[in-house]
């Protein structure tokens, strides 16, 4: 049986979300026009997460995609918590003091983040107090450390990633008197998640990546064509530098076993990740925590299982690689996506499809005859072609949805084949994972005028 086009659309659009940055009158205009995001599950429930927020106490916007494995607990926790760690890392000393004083005296807290969430993007209510206390300990330490230096975004990102992963690990070791929470923190620690986070402030774009999700910049060349620039490195076996790093961190004797069958210890695909304490803790620690933990954990074969050749932990880190990029007017958009997208599509195609979609929707590139010699017939042909393209694009109001449609439905000619799309989307749950992975995409669109103006100022 086949899904009808409206059925296909309702599946594709179920998780789509768009945010337009409000325009301010002349001042404080943002280099981000807005973003579109969407998710298509293959796992049930989906193990990917996404987050987007505006920093309220500093400038800039945060966007991230998180790919969970061995369950979604870790990805969920990271999607809720990481941006707070980043925001706090970026805060100046005075603001930190102000916040701490407010908490101390029970006054209302300065809002740190404004979230842009799809209704399906939930936050755990039960753990919020626990998470908050860990975060507070972090900023108290930052206050004590007061370096007096202005915060460097790269360092802030790295610190935040590492600190959160450390807190996840600690919380699991300490446990919680509340049995529900106790189980939750263990689930978070024993599952894992990669993270690919972008911070945009003016023309400064930082991408911090841990794992095999990817950030890609869409660049429009002078002739109007589209090209892709990578703003992250995959942390997996395909990345020689990464393989080298892992091998360097362990004795020569483990050279053969530490990366096996393109996996870390022959088990894990991403070479960096949050959580996954099975690749971080000593065997003793793992045994102690599992034994003293709740029964559910104890009965779980996976948690009890110690990876083979596990001699010199930790084998895994959450420390991100950060790439800094100064935005230029030709940088039109940024795509953050989990590996579900990149497995099916080449980044060059992604750049082209999104680029044409965005320009088609907004007619950003009107035709001008100027000094060219164009005949009526040529112009007519050109316009007919443009109209045909626009009409197919208009099915989607969201660039991420449009990209998913292509990722899932593209045939060998690179155009969306409804039959194929329908088949892929009607796979039963247990089969879906065989044909595709969870896909999560955020497409951030930049305001070239603002970026041009910034450039002129500098």
């Amino acid at each position, binding site marked *: 049986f086949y899904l009808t086009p409206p059925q296909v659309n309702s599946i594709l659009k179920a998780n789509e979300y768009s945010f337009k940055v409000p325009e301010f009158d002349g001042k404080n205009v943002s280099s981000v026009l807005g973003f579109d995001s969407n998710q298509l599950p293959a796992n049930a429930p989906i193990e990917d997460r996404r987050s987007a927020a505006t920093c309220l106490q500093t400038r800039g916007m945060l966007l991230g995609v998180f790919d969970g494995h061995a369950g979604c607990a870790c990805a969920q926790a990271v999607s809720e918590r990481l941006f707070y760690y980043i925001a706090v890392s970026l805060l100046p000393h005075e603001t930190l003091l102000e916040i701490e004083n407010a908490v101390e005296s029970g006054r209302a807290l300065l809002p740190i983040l404004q979230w842009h969430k799809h209704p399906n993007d939930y936050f755990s209510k039960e753990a919020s107090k626990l998470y908050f206390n860990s975060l507070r300990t972090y900023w108290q330490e930052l206050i004590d450390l007061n370096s007096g230096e202005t915060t460097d975004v790269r360092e802030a990102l790295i610190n935040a990633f590492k600190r959160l992963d450390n807190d996840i690990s600690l919380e699991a070791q300490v446990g919680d008197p509340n049995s529900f929470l106790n189980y939750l923190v263990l689930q978070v620690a024993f599952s894992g998640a990669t993270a690919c986070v972008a911070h945009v402030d003016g023309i400064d774009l930082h991408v911090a990546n841990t794992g095999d999700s990817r950030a890609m910049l869409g660049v429009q060349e002078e002739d109007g064509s589209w090209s892709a620039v990578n703003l992250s490195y995959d942390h997996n076996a395909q990345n020689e530098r990464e393989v080298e790093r892992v091998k360097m961190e362990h004795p020569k004797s483990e050279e053969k076993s530490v990366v096996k069958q393109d996996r870390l210890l022959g088990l894990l695909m991403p070479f960096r990740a949050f959580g996954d304490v099975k690749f971080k803790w000593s065997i003793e620690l793992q045994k102690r925590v599992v034994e003293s933990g709740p029964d559910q954990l104890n009965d779980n074969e996976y948690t009890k299982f110690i990876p083979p050749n596990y001699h010199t932990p930790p084998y895994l880190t959450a420390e991100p690689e950060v790439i800094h990029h100064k935005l230029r007017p030709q940088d039109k958009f940024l795509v953050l996506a989990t590996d579900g997208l990149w497995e099916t599509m080449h980044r060059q195609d992604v750049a082209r499809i999104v680029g044409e979609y965005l320009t088609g929707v907004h007619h950003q590139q009107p035709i001008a005859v100027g000094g060219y010699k164009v005949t*009526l*017939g040529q112009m007519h042909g050109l316009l007919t072609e443009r109209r045909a393209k626009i009409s197919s694009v208009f099915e989607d109001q969201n660039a991420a949805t449009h990209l998913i449609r292509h990722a899932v439905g593209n045939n060998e000619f690179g155009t969306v084949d409804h039959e194929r799309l329908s088949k892929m989307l009607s796979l039963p749950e247990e089969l879906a994972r065989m044909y595709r992975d969870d896909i999560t995409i955020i497409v951030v669109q930049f305001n070239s005028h603002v970026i041009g103006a910034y450039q002129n100022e500098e």
Partner: protein
Amino acid sequence: AARMFLRLLSDIQWRAAHPKWRRMTSSQRSTSTTAEPHLVSLPAQAQVVICGGGITGTSVAYHLSKMGWKDVVLLEQGRLAAGTTRFCAGIVSTARPVSIELKMAHYSNKLYQQLEQETGVQTGYMKTGSISLAQTQDRLISLKRIASSLNVMGIPCEIISPKKVLQLHPLINIHDLVGAMYVPEDALVSSANVSLALATAASRNGVQIHERTCVSHVTIQKGRVTGVETDRGRIQCEYFVNCAGQWAYELGHSGEEPVHIPLHACEHFYLLTHPLKEPLSSSLPTIVDPDGRIYIRNWQGGILSGGFEKNPKPLFTEGRNQLEIQNLQEDWDHFGPLLGALLRRMPGLEALQIMQLVNCPESFTPDMRCIMGESPTARGYFVLAGMNSAGISYGGGAGKYLAEWIVNGYPSENVWPLDLKRFGTLQSSRTFLRHRVMEVMPLMCDLKVPRWDFQTGRQLRTSPLYDRLDAQGARWMEKHGFERVKYFVPPGNDLLDLDHSKTFYKPDWFDIVGSEVKCCKEAVCVIDMSSFTKFEISSTGDEALESLQYLFSNDLDVPVGHVVHTGMLNENGGYENDCSIARLSKRRFFMISPTDQQVHCWTWLKNRLPDDSNLVLEDVTWKYTALNLIGPRAVDVLSELSYAPMTAEHFPSLFCKEMSVGYANGIRVMSITHTGEPGFVLYIPIEYALHVYNEVMNMGQKYGIRNAGYYALRSLRIEKFFAFWGQDLDAFTTPMECGREFQVKLDKGMEFLGQEALWEQKQNGVYKRFTMFILEDHDTDMDLWPWWGEPIFRNGRYVGKTTSSAYSYTLERHVCLGFVHHFDEKTGEKLVVTTDFINQGEYEIDIAGQRFQAKAKLYPFSSLFTQRRRKDEVELSGYQRE
């Protein structure tokens, strides 16, 4: 004056000698600007100040100066003819459906033709002719209707076959055509040069022209224009003429007292190409392909082609905006469909090279007709704007009429369809205008069938019963923003949707309206007539009566409770308004006029009533819901609801009384209908409207009551030869000419407006006569229906046009109303029309080129008046006595 001319316009002379100047780019233009050393200072005062140096402004200046008004200053914010005029396509086309527009275009054409000789300025005038193409039979019918009116005006015009089109224009693909209309005398001009020529002639006659002078606002004191503030100082003046084109709305709103000029700009695109390999002849006719939404003219060996797309781009909604001006760029994607239509029409042009896509905003009005006339709120403030992309075609004629209006107090033709006062403040909302012009611009090309309605800007003014009526199947039309019912679709009776119901033949509502008419004749119907304009005039002493006696031709000194039908006439005895006035008390009068009279009538009275605080004029239109009970059983319904006898002995015709209906008290009941049927109109304070309506409908059930709409009303009034103001009557029609002498009391013992003119007509006879025509050999099912504007032929000669028509369900024939003239066979001079002249002719009505025999009547069929009552009999005998 000679010196003034030299001062002016060394500049214009220079331009006339260098006609290529206008094609220079703006940067070159600005160099020439800087070259001019200093500006001549403005005069401190002038009789007339005109704002706007485009085609309309220069045309007004030209005609004022021709009529001897020399103390005129024309101000232009930039350069003469540099706005829309500079960019317009320069097509002078007379093929216009509205008669006054046709006359303006015809005059413009004649004016431009001789302008070069008169002024020495090259206007580029070239008589190329124009061909309007029809891709469908319906389109061909609409062209034939226009051809009929052109022919009787003496403008050559013929309906031609597609093959003939090909002979006239070798590039056209004729495979999808069913016919075309050829107007050989249509012309092309360089519009900017025409404007400059008019300016040159005007300045020679003494008009001062100042460029780069911006009018900031007009000062108005005590309702009169006193002067103009500009960026270069103030000019005192008696008259101001707003010819600011697309900026007219803003200029109107710039002063303390706003003058509402409802127009809105839309982007308009046309294409210019390089010359063909074998350059097109400059005498090749202009092609108009309304079904393809495009026009194509020859241009410097290549073509110029633009059109009116379905999805227009309105702009300057929030006023003049630099960003929007800068963004006025070529939008090829937007132009795509029109380019497709062009290449379908002329496939041979594929290889023709593009020169430019010009984006030239045009201003549009809510009803597709231009705006001229005097502001209702500021005397001496005149307007000519909103040309709906036909500025060149209308400019000459419109300028002439407006100049006449300023100089004489009224123009030489009936320009009511163009009068600014047809609009009120209600059409001035920017949202309304933005939405409406988005409908109007595509309508330039859409097929206009009888009785089409605008779809945007609706449900603005409604009766309190709107929802009730709508739920009962009402279909609506709009007049002056007010929703009125056309007819009620009975449950289970589906009519065609809007597009499919467009026809020149028998409409799909035929039987529905027939049954409403039948009910009006046999039982009783309710029609909501709340849209009518309602005024109250009262005074502490006799001022109200005295003033009204002077302003109205009938005798209003009647007993309290009487209703009088009377004309509100101008000095020439013409109808400025036709209304019913009830004397509520000795010193209080209630006046009902047509819906679209709200602004005009108010202004007319305000300007003529003495400035006396004892005399109060109030617009109470919004206070009352009017329900018209029509039919023989109306009397039964009403007497049951009021426990009052309503028979003719107790409540004679043309009587007015406040009484209770149901629980509601203070309902003003008048024994009048607008159709000649027996019945009443109930003027109900709006909060009682729903109650009274419910009571009437409940009580009426046993008498077979039902709702009816205006189409039934129209059929009833036309078969009874009742004239309506705005349709049949206008400022150029007197009561004597439409058999209403009985509504004029020449001997009422005091002077009244128009009296002298009417005396003269009474003595010397009339030059046109309102006549009823019954179509004889017309097949209602198969033949085209008459609408209005059809030529009337007497013994094969043209004698006039119809003004309205309807199918009479009683006579089972079509009835047309119209005016018969008597043109001298040799000279064409208008002669007196006698009763014998009317009666002794054989008549034909021309519907889209096909002539139908018609029987002429000067009196209605007395058999149609089912129940005569006291007053009616008097009135009818008034008809007959004549």
